[in-house]
């Protein structure tokens, strides 16, 4: 009965090699979020979609992109991963802006 699914759970990539993380939801929520959580740090919002409207945080590096082809799926693309991009990436959804956010289990990215 998983509601927010992230694949893969663990991803290893090489320095500079593009990587895509996937998130899907069965909740039919309007809003989807991507958070980055580095070791021992707080989760930090990278960007979010309200339906097809994309909202980028001002300090999100250009290296990070996102796609939402339909309501259910959202992707995080890292064009040229650096060592500093190694982190847990959390996807979350909510019905509207001010509703509870439901989180996926996260994808742990390792950059070699």
């Amino acid at each position: 009965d998983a509601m927010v699914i992230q694949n893969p759970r663990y991803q290893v990539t090489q320095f500079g090699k593009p990587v895509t993380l996937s998130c899907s939801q069965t909740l039919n929520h309007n809003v989807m979020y991507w958070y980055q959580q580095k070791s021992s740090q707080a989760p930090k919002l990278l960007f979010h979609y309200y339906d097809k409207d994309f909202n980028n945080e001002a300090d999100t590096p250009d290296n990070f992109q996102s796609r939402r082809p339909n309501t259910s799926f959202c992707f995080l693309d890292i064009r040229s991963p650096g060592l500093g991009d190694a982190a847990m990436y959390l996807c979350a959804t909510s019905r509207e802006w001010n509703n509870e956010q439901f989180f996926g289990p996260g994808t742990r990215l390792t950059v070699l």
Partner: protein
Amino acid sequence: AQRVTQPEKLLSVFKGAPVELKCNYSYSGSPELFWYVQYSRQRLQLLLRHISRESIKGFTADLNKGETSFHLKKPFAQEEDSAMYYCALRAGESNTGKLIFGQGTTLQVKP
């Protein structure tokens, strides 16, 4: 700037002891405050939000605007409360839903 501070990385108590996880925030507007919990090998999930003013699993939290705090309390800790707890803030005027998280406190309840 909006900021959430959880001063304790680790809080260790014995079963049955009272628990208080501290959270302070910095925000000039009307904040919404939340506590999220992450049990071992599980996903982050909402524990409670200040506007609900309810008790969940015996936990309560009161928003103190004067002290800019939203401490999480439970009178008698249970072993199953052991988890990572995150305090989070959302700007009340926000139309983005953005959450600003603290760094988290690991609660360890010993038998």
